[in-house]
């Protein structure tokens, strides 16, 4: 690929990136059509691309790249959804939306003008020890990151459980109230105590 074409390609890619929003916290049952109809409320959705999750735990919520028509629309979306919770496919966990980045895309063109070099270091080279340390550090960081991710998932689970409990409790209360009103118990009790509001 000659360089002019490469540059044009890359520029087109960058433009695509600007037009795309990254959506997170999605249920794995969400599919492309659901997302399309969800985001079509705001503007034309050009493409929906799922980001597959290989490296992390398979329990993570899904992420998706949604490509819109224009970068302004994308920005607007990000802003709007950061201020107000938007639900897709279920409640009450809202999706998280932010601007897309280049690394999120699957097929990226190479940045024109960049070269990758690699170099085998000799053990005598003083950089070698540092490189060894770097390698170790990388490994440690990866472990730490996965630990943090675990923690996050735990927190999410906790919150969900807590909400579920609250919801159930509240629902029971409402149900109770409704039942009592419906079958006349409230009315009778009310008469007994002189409160007549339940006569409806």
């Amino acid at each position, binding site marked *: 690929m000659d360089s002019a074409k490469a540059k044009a390609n890359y520029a087109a890619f960058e433009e695509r990136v600007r037009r795309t929003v*990254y959506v997170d916290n999605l249920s794995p049952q969400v599919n492309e059509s659901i997302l399309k109809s969800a985001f079509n409320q705001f503007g034309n959705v050009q493409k929906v691309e799922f980001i597959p999750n290989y490296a992390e735990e398979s329990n993570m919520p899904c992420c998706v790249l949604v490509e819109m028509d224009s970068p302004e629309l994308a920005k607007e979306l990000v802003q709007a959804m950061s201020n107000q*919770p938007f639900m897709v496919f279920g409640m*009450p966990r809202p999706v998280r939306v932010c601007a897309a980045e*280049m690394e999120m895309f699957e097929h990226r063109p190479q940045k024109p003008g960049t*070269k990758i070099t690699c170099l*085998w*270091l000799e053990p005598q080279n003083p950089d070698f020890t540092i490189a060894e340390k770097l390698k170790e550090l*990388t490994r440690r960081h990866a472990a730490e990151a996965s630990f943090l991710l675990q923690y996050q998932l735990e927190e999410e*689970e906790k919150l969900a459980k807590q*909400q579920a409990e609250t919801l159930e409790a509240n629902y029971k209360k409402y149900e109770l109230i409704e039942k009592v009103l419906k079958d006349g118990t409230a009315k009778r009790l009310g008469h007994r105590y002189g409160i007549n509001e339940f006569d409806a």
Partner: protein
Amino acid sequence: MSHSGEAGQNENLEFKWGQKRTVGGKKGEVQFYGTFTYDGVDYSLYDCVYMHNEEETEPYIGKLIKIWETADKKRKVKIHWFFHSSEIINWLGDEEVHANEIFLASGEGSGVANICDLEAIAGKCNVVCISKDSRNPQPSEQELQMADYVFSRTFDVRHCTISDQMDDKVGGLAVKFLFVKKEEPLEFKTERTEGNPNGLVPRGSEDVKDSLVGRKSLPDVKPACGAALATTSGRQVSLSGDKATTYGTESDKNEMKRSKLPADHVEAEDKGKSSQDSGALENKASKNSTADGSVKFSESRNINRKIAVNGNDAKALVTSTTSTEKKPKTVPAKDFLGSDKGVKSAKDTGALDDRPSKKARVDCSVKLSENNNDIGGQKLSRNSDRNKGKELAAPLTSGGALKAGVSSHWLDKDPKQKTDEKTTKLSNGKLLKVSARNCQGENRIPEGDTSEVTPKPADRGGVRRLVVVVLVVGILPGPSMAGSGLLNNVFFAASFGVFLFSGLLPISPLWMVVFGACWLCCGLGAEVVWGAAWGGFGGCRYNHLSSNNRLQHLEVENIYIPMKPWEQRMITAQEQGTLVQLSNLDPACTSKQVEDIIWHAFKENCTAKMVQHTAISSPHSASGQAFIILKTRGAAERIITELDDRCLMLSNRSPLVGSVPPPRSVQKKSAFVGHLSIDIIKHQMQREWKEALSTSHYSQPNNMEYEMAMEWCLLQSRSKLWWNKFYKIQGEELRKLKANLKLK
């Protein structure tokens, strides 16, 4: 919007007109004034004042632009409004707002200025204009410190936009009255200029006290109010501590006392206030009726404010749940659930207080995270690191160009070498073996050599194809000449067809050996079946293991054939032990580049896939990860051990790390937490449920769902904060180590 005229009627506060100006009205019955004294505070035209506020506890801020007394002795003022950022939050978007920034109303409309009773004035306010407009003299540090609020931007009430351009007339107010005016004679009688805190200093101490009293006259702020007011009050407190020389009043003493303690303990100290204070506080906490609003207000004017300081560093954030969006507000719904605005009624329970504060915190943290996002976004653009890497790469490559040239030339030569060898020694399978081994053994880059990773010879596939065809053509006559009759020839033809087909695809040297052996067997007259079996077997195994090669080749050739999805292949590869996970790559690397790196360093063919970033991926320059599938388990293990023992430095100054990826559970549908449903209803509405679930919507703040969604938002922002902090720390560690690298 006009404030109630009841303010001040229950109590006659001290009032005195000051300097007279013109006379107006149809019959000259209206007297305009330039200055006045109200309740011990001197005001003059173009001063900024706090205005009473029935429902909200945060006062409005406005600028006096006209002061007059009507014919029936009513005192009126015309106020040009400022907006708190919380009032225009819907139009603020992503803009950054200072902690005590307010916005001048501009444009045309009813929200710009109003006529109010003079008695609705609650106190004086020090607003400093920090606009970068050339006509505005920039305020000094001291002025800024003493300012209650700053402003530099306007909010157009008609278009609901924010701008920092100051026209000559902003909403009908000549702009010179907005800017900071420098020193002028400071007698009280003359027209004081606006926003001139310097004026305070040379005045007598009495005036200072007055102005401070004025400042203290802010009403109590509900704990749920954002940190903005907390910070301003904190500053005021410290300020009054500074000027605590001539004060004798009890309230001043209180203030002094308070200023000594750090802001965190303010709450604790508030509890120890005098009974008068707590009494007034309770009044405040109870229903704010309009009638006695002003009475209490004036009582509490000298009372210290109860400040709830958020423990976390929310200084940069200006959100307040208590004020509403627009000036002409409607009474906010006092809904129990999810009423995030205007929850100040007497029905306030402790829980309700928590909820607005939670919202404040959510907004705070969301805003903070947004700010962090911005910072993170800049980090993510990663210009400096990558550019540096590129610059570094350039001299490196030029330095090693000679060697690189040699080695890459060597690379190019090899396939040709292979071809030559094969064409000359075709009928001899053993020689094939030899040449294959040569290929593998010789193409190592000598150590200590930086070489540019050029793309693998892209036409290798084509060359190989040619090789195979030639091989087949060459070998075919050999065995048949050595061998038997027509049957064999038929068989050969059939196998030849098989070969041709498989010859469309690149074959590794090893398989050439196998096929060669197969041919030899056939040629030497072994069983036809044996030969066929070999051929078939070879073909099958080839298909199986070389599917990745097929992928590469097809990419090159632009032939579209549906391939197995990557994930499937990854799983198979993992089972077979040919999957390797690489880390420390440059995130801007593409999959193709990764393949090139592996080829260059290890002479191994592989298919690579860069792991795509998500919102929680590291922003550092070495956070690229990739999965590669190699052809054999041996190759995978070799690569891992070599990367471990030796050290392959990449252009992003990080050594490549290879590891065996941990086994992944192959759950297809993972459990997703957070989506709730009520089971009973679910059963009842099975069919409808499916349709209902597919609708996506914004959650409205009038139901339980909203509240729960808010909790999730809170968790999400918290998690964003963790990750940011985490990566910051990691980045530091990386940086420290890398600083010692001599590799430049």
